[in-house]
C-alpha cells in the first residue's frame, strides 16, 4: 500500500508539474518587475496602466528590431515596429544613454512588441532659475563661502561617488526630505541644484 501511495503521488505530481514545465517555455518572461521603483516614486499611476514597462533605455538593435531596457536590476527586451510611436524625442535613434522611458506593449506570440515608447519629457524650469555652465564655473572657482552658494548634487549617491562638480554636496532626490538639514540655515542664500542633465 505504501508503495502504491508513493507511486500515485509521483504520478499525479508529475501530471501537475508536467504542463507547468512546458507552459513556461516560450512565454514572455513573467518573472521580474515590469516597472522600476525609481519611476514609481514620482509616477505611482504607472501601476494602473496595463501592459506597461517603465525603466531606463539601455540598447537598441536595428537588426533585431529590439530595444533593451533596464528595470530595477534586470534587463527586459521589447521589439519595435514601423507602427511604434515615439514621444518626446524625434525618433527611436534619439534614445541614447540611459534616458528614462515608458513603453506600452502588446503581446504578439511569445514577444512583447512596443506600441508606444514615451521618453521622459524635458524638465520645465523657469528661466530666471536657470544657471549656465559659465556662471556656475565662476562661482565654483570662488568656492561656496566667497561665492555665497550651496551646490547640491541630486543624483543617486553612487553617481556622486563616481564624479561630481567640485564643492558639491550629495543629496539624492529621493532622500531629500530627510536631508533638508544639509541645506543652508539662511533660506535666502543661493542654493543650486544639478543632476545628470536633460538632453
Amino acid at each position, binding site marked *: 500500500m505504501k508503495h502504491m501511495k508513493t507511486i500515485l503521488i509521483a504520478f499525479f505530481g508529475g501530471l501537475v508539474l508536467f504542463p507547468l514545465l*512546458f507552459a*513556461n*517555455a*516560450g512565454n*514572455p*518572461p513573467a*518573472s*521580474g518587475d515590469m516597472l522600476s521603483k525609481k519611476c514609481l516614486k514620482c509616477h505611482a499611476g504607472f501601476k494602473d496602466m496595463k501592459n506597461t514597462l517603465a525603466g531606463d533605455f539601455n*540598447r537598441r*538593435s536595428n*537588426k*533585431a*528590431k*529590439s530595444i*533593451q531596457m533596464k528595470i530595477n536590476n534586470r*534587463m*527586459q*527586451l521589447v*521589439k519595435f515596429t514601423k507602427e511604434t510611436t515615439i514621444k518626446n524625442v524625434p525618433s527611436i535613434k534619439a534614445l541614447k544613454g540611459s534616458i528614462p522611458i515608458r513603453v506600452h506593449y502588446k503581446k504578439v*506570440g*511569445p*514577444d512583447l512588441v512596443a506600441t508606444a515608447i514615451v521618453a521622459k519629457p524635458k*524638465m520645465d*524650469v523657469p528661466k530666471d*532659475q*536657470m*544657471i*549656465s*555652465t559659465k556662471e*556656475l*564655473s565662476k562661482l*565654483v572657482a570662488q568656492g561656496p563661502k566667497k561665492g555665497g552658494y550651496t551646490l*547640491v*548634487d*541630486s*543624483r543617486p549617491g553612487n553617481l556622486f*561617488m*563616481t*564624479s*561630481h*562638480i*567640485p564643492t558639491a554636496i550629495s*543629496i539624492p*532626490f529621493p532622500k*531629500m*526630505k530627510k536631508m*533638508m538639514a544639509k*541645506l543652508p540655515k539662511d*533660506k*535666502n*542664500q*543661493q*542654493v*543650486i*541644484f*544639478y*543632476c*545628470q*542633465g*536633460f538632453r
Partner: protein
Amino acid sequence: MAARLAAKSGYTNIKVYHAGLPAWAKAGHLLLTTDNFVKKRMGFVVIIDTRGPEAAKKGHIQGAVAIPLKDVVKEKNQFPLDRKAHLVFYAENTDMAGLAPLVKEISSWGYKHVYVLDGGYKGWVKNNGGIQKGLVRTEIFYIPRPHPGEIVGDEFMNIVETQPGDVLILDVRTADEADGGMIEGAVNIPVDELQGRLSELPKDKEIVTHCKTGLRAEMGYTILRNAGFKTRFLNDKVALIDDKFYCCFK
C-alpha cells in the same frame, strides 16, 4: 523635483543647473572623483600620479602610473583607444588649480570620464587606500571592465576549439548572416525569434551567445537569463570570411 521641494520649504534664491553634469564635463571643466570609486573600479581604471616617478617611489596609489604633470600631454599616444575609459589624475592634495588645464586638454581628446581624485594622495592614505612603494610603472595600460555576463574572448575561443559537452554556442545573428558561415557546432536562432524558440534549447548546458558585434549577443543573453537559462555572451566582434572564423576583437 529638488528645486521645487526646496522652494516649498522656504528657500528664496534657488537656481537649477539644468544642463547638468554631462554639460559641465563637456565644457572641459574639472570633475572630482572619490576614493571609494577608485577602490571599486580598481583594475579597470587608469590612475595617473602626476607627482612623477620620484615622489611615487616613496608611495603611490596601487596600480597607478607615474607621469609628471608637465609630461602627461606628451604621452598622448600611450592613452587608451577606448574614449570611454575612466581616467583618474591625482596630486599630493586636491590640486584643482594645477590639474584643471590638464583635464581640459585630455577631455578635448574625446575622453568622457576624466576625473581628479578628491583629497589626492594624502586623502587616499588617510582613508586606508592600498599603496605601493618602490618600483612604479610609467607606461599606461588599460583593461575595460567586463559587462555582467560577458565571456572573455580567450575562453570563448577555447570553447570553440574544444567543443565541451556542457556548453552550447548560440549564434543569434539572422538566418541570412548564418547562411554565410557559422562557427562549427553552433546553433543559429536569430535573436528576434529567440523568445519563441526557447524550448529548442537545453536547460542543462551553459548557453554562450555570439553575434557580429556583441550587441545582439547581449540581448540574447538577457532573454535567456530572464527565462532561467545558464548563460553568458561574447561582447566582441566576430567575423566569418570564406568559412574561416576570426574572433574576439573589440
